[in-house]
């Protein structure tokens, strides 16, 4: 039954790719289509309100400047709200202002689509902050990521000097994708028992005569966009393990598909833009084959359980249930873990710190590779970056100028791609080393032995890949951790985004080279294999030493 439910969810996802991808393509292709009549009016109104006079395409520099300016303003306004939340309305549980470094970390975390949370939602945020900062940034950061990915695709697949208009992409992401889908999923989740209220916490007189205060709030409206936007920050501290955020296996499946479907349809969208759908399916196939290996690994490891506890003589047939919920069991927990770190959502329905060492290696590795589907747009951009690298390497091997989609790949592009690929391991491994060398960093470790290494490594990997899940035992709400992870999240998000827009801006100006018999094809299984090989080899060369010190060493000690 476990295997069957996994297959069904994956099957539904695959069936969603084409219809959803076609819709997304029409949203951004800027050609007239039927949905214009539905959304055109409200969009023109928004363009008027924000003072957008021209909807012409932008150069990559202008596109980058536009999204950066918008993100900076959102950060500034949100920081003010968090610092002032104690005196703002919408605070029935009387929560005070958030501390400076924690506010810094929180706004960076949400604008970068990371959603690392060093606070606990129930006690750290007013309802107003949950809505006007958290939910708002869940929309805007997802829309930013999606827009940048589309601009990158335009750069690869069209000719001219511009890669689209950021503001129209940004507005349309909201009006045609995130707002309608989020409202729909919110209502479905409420029907399936996720709360949505502005009332303060509930007080219950329990069966044994004690009092139980139950945190509640506008949970469903956050839950839907948290997954659709691959954000991942929970309303409650326990995130999607909390029964109010994720009450049943059915809501679990809905949340999984919500976070997975949009990233999974992007390769198809890319194939449509390229005018060659096979290009898209090859990338999708590469992502899916990596994903299946990861899912099988975490499922097997968790089902096998923790040998230390299994040896105590109790009935261990259920697998490792520490940190997991009974309603999800091993299958739905493993699937959620594999998807949330693939799609870089970072919500959790079980505690990743408590996963078996090999089970915990899976989310860590998926975030290190950062290309298995990936978050709103970023995953596809990273995967295409590896595709260009694969073409480059293959081209070197046969001794001809590498081409991608008919364009010559030259030193300028390769330099930018090298920066984007190298910055990821650098901002993971350098701060990890710094944390181990300082008392400020070491003080946060709560699990002794090799697992402590995994805790620190996971925190920075999650920050760098803008995932946001954690080995949550780490006592990370200190100025040291708030500042360092804040900086890592910023670099992890914007360096690769800007580098990739620059690549797009360079490629869009190039003349296409006619296809000949000698052209290296990028739309077949062979290329899919080379792509997966490139990702795995680069990832293993970079991260294997760190991984051996953490999860693998722990695995060997508890056998």
């Amino acid at each position: 039954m476990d295997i069957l439910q996994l297959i069904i969810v994956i099957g539904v996802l695959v069936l969603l790719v084409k219809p959803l991808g076609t819709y997304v393509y029409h949203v951004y292709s800027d050609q007239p289509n039927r949905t214009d009549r539905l959304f055109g009016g409200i969009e023109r109104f928004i363009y008027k309100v924000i003072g957008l006079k021209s909807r012409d395409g932008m150069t990559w520099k202008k596109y980058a400047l536009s999204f950066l300016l918008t993100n900076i303003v959102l950060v500034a306004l949100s920081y003010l709200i968090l610092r002032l939340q104690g005196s703002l309305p919408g605070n029935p549980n009387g929560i005070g202002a958030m501390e400076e470094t924690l506010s810094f970390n929180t706004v960076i975390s949400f604008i970068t689509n990371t959603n690392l949370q060093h606070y606990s939602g129930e006690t750290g945020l007013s309802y107003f902050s949950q809505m006007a900062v958290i939910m708002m940034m869940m929309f805007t950061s997802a829309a930013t990521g999606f827009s940048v990915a589309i601009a990158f695709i335009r750069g690869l697949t069209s000719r001219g000097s511009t890669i689209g208009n950021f503001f129209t992409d940004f507005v349309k992401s909201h009006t045609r994708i995130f707002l309608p889908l989020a409202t729909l999923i919110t209502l479905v989740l409420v029907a399936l028992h996720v709360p949505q209220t502005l009332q303060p916490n509930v007080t219950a007189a329990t069966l044994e005569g004690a009092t139980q205060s139950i945190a509640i709030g506008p949970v469903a409206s956050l839950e839907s966009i948290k997954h659709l936007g691959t954000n991942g920050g929970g309303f409650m501290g326990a995130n999607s393990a909390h029964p109010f955020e994720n009450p049943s296996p059915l809501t679990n499946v809905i949340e999984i598909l919500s976070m997975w479907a949009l990233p999974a349809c992007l390769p198809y969208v890319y194939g449509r833009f390229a005018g060659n759908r096979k290009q898209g399916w090859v990338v999708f196939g590469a992502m899916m084959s990596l994903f299946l290996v990861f899912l099988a690994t975490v499922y097997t490891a968790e089902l096998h359980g923790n040998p230390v506890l299994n040896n105590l003589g109790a009935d261990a047939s259920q697998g490792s249930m520490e940190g997991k919920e009974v309603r999800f069991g091993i299958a739905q927990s493993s699937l959620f873990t594999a998807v949330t770190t693939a799609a870089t959502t970072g919500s959790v329905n079980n505690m990743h710190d408590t996963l078996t060492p090999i089970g915990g290696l899976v989310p860590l590795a998926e975030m290190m590779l950062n290309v298995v589907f990936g978050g709103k747009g970023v995953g596809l951009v990273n995967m295409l970056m590896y595709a260009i690298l694969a073409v480059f390497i293959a081209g070197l091997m046969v001794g001809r100028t590498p081409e991608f989609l008919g364009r010559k790949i030259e030193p300028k592009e390769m330099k930018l791609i090298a920066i984007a690929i190298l910055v990821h391991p650098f901002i993971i491994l350098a701060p990890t080393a710094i944390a181990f060398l300082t008392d400020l960093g070491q003080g946060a470790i709560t699990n002794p032995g090799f697992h402590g290494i995994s805790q620190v490594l996971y925190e920075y990997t999650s920050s760098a890949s803008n995932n946001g899940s954690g080995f949550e035992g780490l006592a990370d709400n200190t100025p040291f951790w708030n500042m360092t992870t804040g900086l890592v999240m910023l670099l992890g998000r914007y360096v690769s985004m800007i580098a990739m827009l620059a690549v797009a801006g360079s490629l869009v100006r190039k003349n296409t080279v006619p296809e000949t018999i000698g052209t290296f094809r990028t739309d077949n299984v062979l290329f899919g294999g080379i792509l997966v090989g490139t990702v795995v080899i680069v990832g293993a060369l970079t991260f294997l030493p760190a991984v051996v010190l953490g999860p693998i060493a722990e695995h060997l000690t508890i056998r």
Partner: protein
Amino acid sequence: MTNSTSSSGSNGSLFMIALRASIAFILLCGIIYPLVSTGLAQLLFPHQANGSLIKDSNGRIIGSSLIGQSFTDPAYFQGRVSSIDYKAEASGSNNYAPSNPDMLQRTKDSIAAWQAANPDVPVSQLPLALITNSGSGLDPHITPASAEVQIPRISKLTGLSADTLKELVKKHTDGRDLGVFGDPRVNVLELNIELSQLRK
């Protein structure tokens, strides 16, 4: 300089567009969207939207069918380990790593406590799942096997027959969602509410 014929004008006017867009989307996504969602949810599904609360005959709130409660009386079915003792104003757990010695000690203590309270049931029948900490610390469920192994103890303490209790557990066992998703489970609070009525 502004209003130039080029696409959205100078960098200064780009900033103004960014500022206005930010305010517009704070209003749209941060205020209007959650408020409209709340309104629709309260209108269409008031019971679910307010936390699926369980009330007694006098209308007093006993709890939520989604949130577990702490049971110390051995004559009740016990839920899973909760490091926050089912205090639902917060949520979470210890996040013990699989190699953490404190978790090993906690599990050994749980087994010893189990043996003392359930001398008739061998440890080999005790599901490990029952003595592990849930991720949320508020798990309302236990596995059907975890409920069944508690029947001998509860039967002895309440005088209710094992068959009656078996029926009761069966009645409160939820199958997989749509017949395939998730794991079968027993809601401890709902089970104990009916048990307390039988005990009267």
